[in-house]
């Protein structure tokens, strides 16, 4: 019984809540952990300085179906670098979000990978249907 209860709690916690929009999913699963990670890192490095601020733009007004029946929405992230007003750079991150499952994918090289790749996890490229409209050869999200 405790096991079933724990499983139920886990499923409820991991499933996307009805109130979660694609934008809030990108914020929660990508931008918030990314900002926290960057805050902890040393500035004395050859790595690009962390962004002072990021904003999400959803690229599709309505969800798009992929070849496996999943519905995704493309997004792009703009980032502001430097102190003070700084400069905004568009499309520093592009990808797609599956609101139904809460999965967030990013364009990384030629393929899409789960959002964890920008958090330092070693993640293989996603399946070829991910972030691509059913029947389309071209990449839709962030393409």
């Amino acid at each position, binding site marked *: 019984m405790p096991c079933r209860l724990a499983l139920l709690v886990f499923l409820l916690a991991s499933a996307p809540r009805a109130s979660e929009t694609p934008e809030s999913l990108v914020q929660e699963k990508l931008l918030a952990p990314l900002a926290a990670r960057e805050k902890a890192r*040393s500035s*004395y490095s050859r*790595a690009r300085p962390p962004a002072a601020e990021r904003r999400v733009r959803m690229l599709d007004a309505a969800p798009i179906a992929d070849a496996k029946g999943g519905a995704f929405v493309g997004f792009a992230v703009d980032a502001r670098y430097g102190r003070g007003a700084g400069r905004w750079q568009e499309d520093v991150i592009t990808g797609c979000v599956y609101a139904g499952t809460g999965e967030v994918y990013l364009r990384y090289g*030629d393929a899409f990978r789960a959002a964890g790749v920008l958090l330092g996890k070693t993640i293989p490229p996603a399946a070829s249907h991910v972030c691509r409209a059913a029947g389309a050869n071209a990449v839709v999200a962030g393409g």
Partner: protein
Amino acid sequence: MRLIRSAWLTALALGSTVITAGSLEYFKADLPEFVIEKLPLPWEAVWLGALKIHVAAAALALPGCLVLLSKTALQRAPRFHRWAGRATAAVVLLALVPSGSYLALFAKGGLPSSAGFLVSGAIAAATMVQAVREARARRFEAHRRYALHVLGQLSVAVTSRAMLFGFDALAFDPERAYLIALWLPVVASALAVELVLWRKHALPSRPSRLPARFRSASV
């Protein structure tokens, strides 16, 4: 002049320590930002291997050069100086420069950036070979000159990062900042070494506390 020398060497030692501490990230399971922004790359495992060799070699080479500058060590333990020199030369020539040259091919900033790293590596390697040859020939004045050029190029790791930190604070364009923070220390270090040696010869020097046979080997 002595104060400037001490401050400079202390800054290099501190910078080297901070870089080494930051480089521990490269050996953890989660990849650090510098790696994330580079990947994916062709032959990723080779690049990651070269990066690990490079940071480990750098953690030994720069402190090694700083230890070799010690007049006390040279005066009291010349054998230690010789062996530390051989070890540092081996690390620079067999690990630091080869791994750095491979990493340079994929440097952020494209061709100008790659060229900057390759020029720095070439100066470090060529002057290290010459430094060893001059030491073996007991031409300590020339040995010192070439060894200082090696240190000059290794110090680019510290000064370059310090400049990037400053450029970020000034909200300077990151791509341009990266190139300036690379080329300026590479060229300035080489010129500074020649300037310091020229001044030392041009100005009357104070009497040295070193025995005559090592006098020309100290900085």
